[in-house]
């Protein structure tokens, strides 16, 4: 049996994490949460998720710095940015740093499903 896809979500908004967890659990994913970029890096190292959904504006360490560190440690991990700051500049910056996609808040369920499908395709046993 295929194990559940393990996804790390990092956002300082408790509401966003709650809503996103509900969406991802409906898609049969296991969810790990982080409240800021520093915690996201730690959880990435400790819990070894299959993919990461990362906000940009967060306390302590922001999403762009967290993306850099996560991709340095684990270049193959699929990272999707989920942020209100979806300007063309931010989109280009994060794609250059290795993010796979950028979802502008507020997201739709269809966008989250596409993000999960994208992550799933990058994880060998889930292809």
């Amino acid at each position, binding site marked *: 049996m295929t194990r559940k896809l393990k996804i790390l979500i990092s956002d300082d908004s408790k509401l966003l994490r709650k809503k996103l967890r509900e969406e991802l659990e409906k898609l049969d994913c296991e969810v790990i949460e982080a409240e800021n970029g520093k915690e996201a890096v730690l959880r990435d190292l400790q819990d070894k998720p299959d993919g990461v959904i990362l906000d940009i504006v967060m306390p302590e360490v922001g999403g762009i710095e967290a993306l850099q560190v996560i991709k340095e440690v684990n270049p193959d991990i699929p990272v999707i940015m989920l942020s209100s*700051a979806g300007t063309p500049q931010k989109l280009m910056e994060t794609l250059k740093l290795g993010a796979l996609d950028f979802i502008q808040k507020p997201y739709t369920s269809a966008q989250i499903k596409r993000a999960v499908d994208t992550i799933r395709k990058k994880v060998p046993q889930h292809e």
Partner: protein
Amino acid sequence: MNSQYFAQYLLNTGMLSGDEVKGMLMKSMSCKPKLPLLAMYQGLVTARQLTDLGVETAAFAAAAQEKGLLTKSQVQNLSQAVTGESLRFAQALLDAGRMDYVRLAELFADYREAPVRPLKEAVARLADGSLDKELEYYNAYVEIFMRSLIRFMDTPAVINVFESLLDSDEQTRIVSQRLSGDLSMVTGLFAADDTFVEMARRYSREDIQEVDELAVDSITEFLNVMNGLYAIDLAKRQMDVDLELPRAAKNQKPVGSHQLELRIDTGFGSFVLVLATDEFVLHDLA
């Protein structure tokens, strides 16, 4: 006609008082525009023809077809018409007996020909000749914000140009977020606790009963999403801004530079949208 700002127009011109508009906004939330109003709005019948027809709404379709005013396919199209907040508001005025078709038709015509958009006029009136440099940016923000209230909080809204809320003695909350980069601007929301909770409940679709962490989080997230939409709008004008971390506090009044305070009346309550060029929440204490 813009589908959203008829109520704002009526308030700006003094056709309705602030209290009347608030009451009608509340009624309009549960109003569906009916066939006679839709037919008049689309120019298929005149107000005079509606009055002469003199039938109840339920009998309108049959009577209008019998008199040759509408065809069967026109009636079908009207039944499926997509309507906006202005028509819901107009229907609420008719249902309350506040206006008849003839008066409404006159006001619709005036509204269509108004030289300044109602929101822009309200903002200019509250700025009162100051804020020259900021006004262009504040206007653009207000347009996005007022449109988004319908989308995210299911409520029509107007800017109340006559009354302030900042002198309230109630327990209040304020949240703010700075945009920095090619533009320095801080946006915020100030509300009494009960309105704050209702806003949080509407935005989050969660059963929030008091000002707790989830309520504050919901409103800061709402503001963050608004500011994100505004940042994208600025990017279209080749301006790049970063969003900073939101701040929240209780019982603090905003004290920013070049500050504009807009009292927003909605179908569920009133709050203040604050725009300034620097931070107006002094202590992050929520």
